[in-house]
């Protein structure tokens, strides 16, 4: 479903992705962790070309994302992206937020889109917040609307860029709960997060990134019990003691 073949990216002189090789199968849940600045956010932002890559090949759902001639609008419609800062449209209600792309991109009739939007918002536990504006919702609720916004496009892939990092602790679980349910349904997901409990429980594989390199990637049992690299061990010892 997603394949990185020796992918490199630079920000000016800064080499942020150094020869990434990675395959993610359909239905797989991959958790990516690593220290800040390790390139993990950049990694998932290349998948829908929010960040273009400079070298290597990146194939997503059969499309050559590395090729500047590949039109991205169509592919982006198949990939839901959830941001750390939610990025909900503040001038629209929850329902308007989730129905905008289905109506404009999928050309879905408004009534149908609204029915879908209500259904998906109910699924993330927000059936009673349809007509609230983002500013009237808590952080956890906003992030669930953001997830619903992605899901309303019936995407093939969902990408999560530190979805719980901006949340107060008591709201983290309601968001993770939605993501767990999604994983159980077989959604292809890449999740950048430090929530190791989530990784242990739902990830098929966990990857560790540092200095733009994919250091280690393994199923969670192995990843946590027997990390191969010293850097992974060091990182895990730091975040797991908290």
């Amino acid at each position: 479903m997603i394949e990185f073949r020796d992918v490199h990216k630079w920000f000016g002189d800064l080499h942020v992705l150094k020869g990434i090789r990675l395959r993610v199968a359909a239905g797989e849940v991959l958790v990516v962790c690593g220290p800040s600045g390790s390139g993990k956010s950049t990694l998932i932002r290349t998948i829908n070309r929010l960040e273009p890559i400079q070298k290597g090949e990146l194939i997503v759902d059969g499309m050559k994302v590395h090729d500047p001639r590949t039109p991205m609008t169509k592919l982006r419609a198949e990939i839901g992206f959830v941001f750390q800062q939610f990025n909900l449209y503040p001038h629209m209600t929850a329902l308007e937020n989730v129905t905008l792309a289905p109506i404009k991109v999928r050309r879905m009739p408004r009534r149908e889109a609204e029915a879908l939007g209500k259904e998906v918002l109910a699924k993330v536990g927000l059936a009673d917040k349809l007509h609230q504006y983002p500013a009237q919702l808590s952080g956890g609720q906003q992030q669930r609307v953001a997830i619903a916004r992605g899901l309303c496009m019936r995407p093939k892939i969902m990408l999560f860029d530190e979805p719980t990092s901006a949340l107060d602790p008591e709201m983290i679980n309601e968001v993770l709960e939605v993501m767990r349910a999604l994983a159980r349904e077989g959604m292809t997901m890449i999740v950048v997060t430090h929530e190791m409990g989530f990784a242990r429980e739902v990830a098929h594989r966990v990857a560790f990134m540092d200095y733009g390199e994919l250091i280690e990637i393994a199923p969670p049992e192995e990843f946590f019990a027997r990390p191969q690299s010293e850097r992974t061990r060091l990182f895990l010892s730091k975040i797991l003691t908290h």
Partner: protein
Amino acid sequence: MWGIYLEQLLQSLPFFLKGLWMTVAVSGLSLLLGTAVGFLWGIVRASRRRILKALIGAWVDVIRGTPFLVQIFILFFILPEFGVHLEAFPAAVIALSNLAACFICEIVSSGIESVPHGQREAAVSSGLNGYQQLRHVILPQALRVILPPLVGQYVLLIKDSSVVSAIGVMDVTRAGWLTVQRIPQGILVFGLVGLLYFAICYPLIQISGALEKRLGRSSRR
């Protein structure tokens, strides 16, 4: 003595109202054209089209850095030497529209840039095309920042329109010039002229203030 002048002035009131109508026509038309062009330029200026951006930026700087009176003289007196003849009215509308577009361009582009980058990223990620991003996500948010200074700019432009009297457009300022030669009471005549401008501008000032207050409230939410 004042009574006589006042009576004369009252008799020339229809003349002033005709001038006022011309002022409204010139500035109204120019604001409409200037707003359309200014939004277009502002959108380009906030985009990533480098060459077009630089061209518009240079033009805006030239126009903002030269007196409007000089611009309108060039258009009206110097262009004919190159074979381009313009009547006073179209020359006035073109010059004032251009001035309006330049100021509005700056207001619009900074309004667009005030929208957080994440908004565009969210719109891009959901598969909206460039036009849809602008129309449904960026502009509605930018507009809240754009509107108060835009209306404020309208007030300035309506007042700047008095300059077009210099090339013979019969606006309310020119009506004053002509009248003061018959009624040698400048304070009365130009007091009336000022009052007429104020009558148009004051409601706009009120609207701009109200918009600003509303923006302040909603951004605090």
